[in-house]
């Protein structure tokens, strides 16, 4: 597989929060050869199942019947081989058309944590009946007072100019149509790439690397690759509901984290020196240890990312689903988060995927038992 071209396909797909179908469908077709079966959940998350050796797991049997109220030692896992879930959220920030003004200008609102400082003069694409290019219009500087020039224009005052006549706009653009930043998938030096939506397609690509790796790596655990919906909205709806359905023994959130660049000092990590492994209450201590051991065995670089509370990833929600899940956080360093020029290093994506695959391969009943022993 050419990782760069797969990543380019992933960032090209439209998948703003709440409208993840195009990307979930892309994963269903692109990853079909790598999984035994796949589905899209009612909330729009992708689930691909790669069965362990000898396993009879099936997605159609999810969710499993609830266990009856047992009196003694009620913490019993469902029968069958261990289950490892890895979630990479597939939704991304963007905008939505809220009104069509006279002249065909589009008003819009933001979806997710959009950096409003970057909106003026942004090139966008409006996903209506077809993909329509547009620009976030601005007043010319000649007509702008000096005070206005240092003011950030509120999103309510911004509009998109498609250059099309109003009647055509009305035909092509329904209210609620997704607005995405236009982009180029740019190859920088040293295996580094820059584009929109590396948050969090980089992690989806890491799941793909893991699935590829698992073709040649023996494993008895079932592996559920989840492309979770809705993360940028908050509440982790896609990951939480998928975890409820799957009842995994281990759930790993794969996400992006801050990479070092000029002006970033604390809580940022070098690009190209491997993924970060989360440490803190959102991360099962024993699972964290296993992840570190695997990285060391593979001779892979990694950094510890200290997460003293909410990790800000799907793991925060997945940890407390049903009777609790052993969770871990694996992150890919990324520069310029939530801008159209998010920058990652392919080596970090490969390393994260390999680490994940080896975790699946190493997971057995004894490890699962161990994770509940404190």
């Amino acid at each position: 597989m050419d990782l760069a071209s797969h990543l380019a396909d992933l960032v090209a797909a439209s998948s703003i929060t709440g409208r993840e179908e195009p990307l979930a469908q892309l994963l269903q077709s692109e990853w079909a050869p790598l999984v035994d079966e796949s589905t899209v959940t009612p909330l729009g998350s992708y689930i691909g199942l790669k069965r362990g050796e000898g396993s009879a797991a099936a997605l159609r049997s999810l969710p499993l019947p609830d266990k009856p109220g047992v009196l003694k030692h009620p913490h019993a896992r469902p029968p069958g081989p261990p289950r490892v879930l890895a979630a990479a959220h597939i939704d991304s920030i963007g905008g939505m058309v809220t009104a069509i003004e006279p002249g065909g200008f589009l008003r819009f609102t933001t979806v997710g944590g959009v950096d409003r400082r970057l909106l003026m003069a942004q090139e966008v694409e409006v996903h209506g009946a077809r993909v329509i290019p547009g620009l976030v219009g601005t007043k010319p500087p000649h007509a702008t007072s000096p005070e206005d020039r240092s003011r950030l224009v509120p999103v309510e005052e911004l509009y998109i100019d498609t250059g099309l006549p109003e009647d055509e706009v009305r035909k092509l653009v329904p209210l609620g149509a997704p607005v995405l930043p236009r982009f180029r998938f740019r190859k920088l030096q040293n295996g580094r790439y820059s584009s929109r939506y590396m948050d969090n397609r980089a992690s989806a690509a890491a799941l793909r690397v893991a699935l590829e790796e698992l073709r040649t790596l023996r494993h008895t655990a079932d592996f559920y690759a989840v492309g979770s919906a809705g993360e940028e909205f908050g509440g982790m709806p896609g990951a939480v509901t998928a975890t409820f359905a799957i009842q995994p023994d281990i759930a790993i959130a794969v996400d992006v984290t801050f990479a070092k660049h000029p002006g970033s000092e604390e809580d940022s990590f070098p690009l190209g020196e491997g993924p970060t492994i989360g440490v803190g209450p959102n991360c099962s201590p024993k699972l964290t240890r296993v992840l570190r051991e695997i990285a060391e065995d593979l001779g892979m670089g990694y950094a510890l990312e200290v997460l003293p509370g909410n990790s800000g990833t799907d793991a925060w929600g997945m940890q407390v689903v049903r009777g609790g899940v052993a969770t871990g956080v694996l992150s890919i360093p990324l520069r310029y988060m939530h801008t159209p020029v998010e920058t990652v290093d392919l080596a970090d994506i490969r390393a994260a995927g390999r680490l994940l695959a080896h975790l699946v391969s190493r997971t057995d009943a004894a490890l699962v038992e161990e994770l509940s022993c404190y």
Partner: protein
Amino acid sequence: MLLEKLSNACGVSGREDEVREALRQELAPYVDEMWTDPLGNLIMRKGDGPVKVMLDAHMDEVGFCVGDITSEGYLKLKKIGGLDDRVLPGREVWVTQRRIPGVLGAKAWHLCSAEERRKAIPFKEMYVDLGCRSRAEVEALGVELGDPVYFATIFEHFSPRVVKGKAFDDRAGCAVLGGVLQGEAHPGITLYAAFTVQEEIGLRGARVAAYNLNPDLAISLEGTGCANVPGVDPKETITNMGEGPVISLMDAAGIPNLQVFNLLVEAAREAGIRYQFRRLTSGGTNAGRIALERAGIPACTVSVPCRYIHTNAALLNLDDLEGAVSLIHHFLRKVEKGEFRP
């Protein structure tokens, strides 16, 4: 004393190991079985009667973890749970459960500008001094990023009934729950003692324990805020130390189930136990989150008043703690008699 052992044990959210171990050792003789779950909750079962009662007390305490090690050998911290920055400078801390001693230094008053003297020292500027001269020296001690850091406070008696210690929120609740297990058996009840994790970062352990245990009712046992101190209007003291266990009317996480609440009040009245209500509605307790599990679980909170919680050292009156144990036993007797109707 159980409270002494528990208060001296170290356990920030996610690293409750020492507390879990102390509880295991102290309470094993009094329970029928015990187990842990994927988050680290320690569950003990006593009895197998028809009514399932969950008593919850959280094991974790507020504190810190190592966020960074500077090249000069200082530790930058991250907070675990809610802490008032103003109480931190000048404190002694223990780094890791191995209790490597360190201090939270502060620039000498003499060196501060007039403006700096008027302001609380920002947390970002604080660091732990272990006496190390380089990052390599810190690493040689086996200190890693994410390692827990604790207030170095040792339990002591200020008077025969008033004790001082760290982490009374919620080791006081753990001690009440331990006291209940050590006391009379309730054959009509399956008592699940849930010593839970991660309360301080979002009521997280209790919810998964409640899901698993699926009890008929639940009570959270807490060390709660208390301010019967100079300068506070008597109407605003939240609770008063020395005036008995506290029954909650409402907090930020939920409103108690009325039946459980009423039964607690009746139990206190019938047994002649001095009690009080919690006169503050902010601050959340596990009961509010437990109530939301599965199809809903009737729940209420009973607390021990503790002055100066969420700092390095708190005070509590042992009469309040013992009153809470007695209140729970009387409550359980009423439940056994069928006075709680699910």
